[in-house]
């Protein structure tokens, strides 16, 4: 890997620029993309950087094509990625489904915008359901919900590695705010942090000559018999579940003695973090829990936080109308903690909103 960054360096950049740099240092070979706000600048930065480092780019005719060209590129053994949002994410669920079925280690950066439909081009957390369980499958994917530029950078590097190590598609779930805002970021070469990048390998066009006796690789995603499909899905599910503990990531603060745990993900967790500090200063025992992976979900860790704190209430705060709440409810089914909600679909949430909500339900 070339030394792209040099010594680790601080910069003040947008989230989209962060994403392009992270893909570059992670050794991504190809990006396929289609314009949609608010992810466009990932393509803009990538198209400026890529030729200098021998990487490729194609602007496709639509998101279906972007997703499927990424699938093809990954099959041929390249680290390939795409970026999209909103209606583009809807279209890409088709190729993402193929990636799930064929275990194609693609990486997709989702910068959530408002929905449903064309919604807004600005911001939301309304692509949680779609990104975690989109398509006609079982959600066999890894979804990292980032909260800062450092997260975007770190989890893109990690995401490529998880994708190629485990062969599950990986999603970096950001949002329009993270895409467009500028904040400090520390960039580094993964190798300088002791991170070894997993090498990609081809699934077709593999080494060895068929004419000299190698078996041809026939990749498939469709089955004649119900039982055949059943075997495959069950095998994939078992592999996914066995990996859960090693993939799951979360962040937890002040939950030991919390009366109320504030659960949030992504950029909203920054406000939740601030809110907990302020509430604590006011003598209110609030705790903070943030799932970093939404798939797989840190359900054991959340159950544990609820159990050890003895908290009476769980406040779920999200810039959507209950997508994180539904996900959480199914993951911690059986818990008797009372769930309160702060739903602000398509708009930001600040510490003030959370503090007010906490005071109104305690």
């Amino acid at each position, binding site marked *: 890997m070339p030394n792209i960054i040099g010594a680790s360096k601080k910069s*003040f950049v947008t989230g989209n620029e962060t994403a392009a740099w992270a893909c570059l240092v992670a050794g991504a070979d190809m990006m396929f993309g289609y314009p949609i*706000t*608010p992810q466009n600048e990932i393509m803009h930065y990538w198209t400026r950087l890529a030729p200098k480092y021998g990487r490729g780019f194609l602007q496709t005719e639509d998101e279906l094509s972007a997703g499927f060209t990424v699938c093809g590129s990954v099959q041929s053994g390249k680290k390939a990625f795409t970026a999209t949002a909103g209606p583009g994410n809807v279209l890409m669920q088709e190729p993402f489904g193929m990636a799930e079925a064929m275990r194609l280690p693609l990486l997709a950066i989702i910068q959530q915008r408002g929905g449903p439909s064309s919604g*807004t*081009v*600005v911001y939301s957390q309304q692509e949680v359901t779609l990104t975690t369980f989109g398509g006609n499958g079982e959600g066999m994917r890894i979804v990292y919900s980032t909260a800062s530029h450092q997260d975007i950078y770190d989890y893109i590097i990690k995401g490529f590695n998880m994708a190629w190590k485990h062969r599950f598609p990986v999603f970096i779930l950001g949002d*329009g*705010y*993270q895409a*467009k*805002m*500028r*904040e*400090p970021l520390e960039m580094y070469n993964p190798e300088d942090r002791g991170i070894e990048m997993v090498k990609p390998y081809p699934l077709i066009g593999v080494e060895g000559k068929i004419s000299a006796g190698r078996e041809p690789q026939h990749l498939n995603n469709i089955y004649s018999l119900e039982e055949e499909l059943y075997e495959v899905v069950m095998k994939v599910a078992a592999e996914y579940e066995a990996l859960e503990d090693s993939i799951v990531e979360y962040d937890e603060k002040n939950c030991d003695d919390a009366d109320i745990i504030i659960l949030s993900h992504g*950029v*909203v967790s*920054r*406000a939740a*973090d*601030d809110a907990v500090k302020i509430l604590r200063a006011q003598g209110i025992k609030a705790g903070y829990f943030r799932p970093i992976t939404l798939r797989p979900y840190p359900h054991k860790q959340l159950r544990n936080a609820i159990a050890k704190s003895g908290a009476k209430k769980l406040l779920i705060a999200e810039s959507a109308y209950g997508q994180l709440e539904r996900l959480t409810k199914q993951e911690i089914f059986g818990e008797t903690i009372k769930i309160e909600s702060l739903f602000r679909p398509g708009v*930001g*949430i*600040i*510490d*003030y*909103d959370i503090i007010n909500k906490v005071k109104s339900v305690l």
Partner: protein
Amino acid sequence: MSLTRIALAGEGGQGVQSIAEILAEAAYNQDQQALYIPNFGLEQRGGVSIAFIQFSDIRIGAPKFHKADVVVALSERAVSRTAIYSGPDTLFVYDNGFHVSEQDLPREAKRIIGIPAIQTANQELHPRVFNIIIMGAVIGLTKVVSFDAAKDALESKLGYKFEKNPELRELNFKALELGKHMAEKALQEGGAENV
């Protein structure tokens, strides 16, 4: 310095986003935490352009905010558009050359201050440095970055232009200084309180 939240708003092309970015970078270069986010999207096309900037000693939470510490409205339309960001603790600044009715001004504000930025730009300097006067005013009002740090940030952003035309450097630095003094003077004089 604790958290300071600033909303700058104006017409597209007035350079609102440029000065927001320069201010945020100036703070970042001084090892402060800074976060800047523009409004973008459909509204931006032909609408009022708003920049949200936050400065702090510690990591900044949510990227946007409901109420700003300082709102600066750079156009008549921006006055009514940004009134919602003004709360009981907000310093609301607009150009006293604007024709705005009482009802366009925010209902809540700690103080509402008018400054002669447009007039100064047009008569004493050059219309193109209007936004730099505003940048100077923000520094005068909030001290979020030092005057020298702002000059450095301007230099790093516009240095390539200054190299070609050194007079431009003079003009920008002068604008920055005038803006700062203008704001400091307005603060001393008081402006309208608790309207």
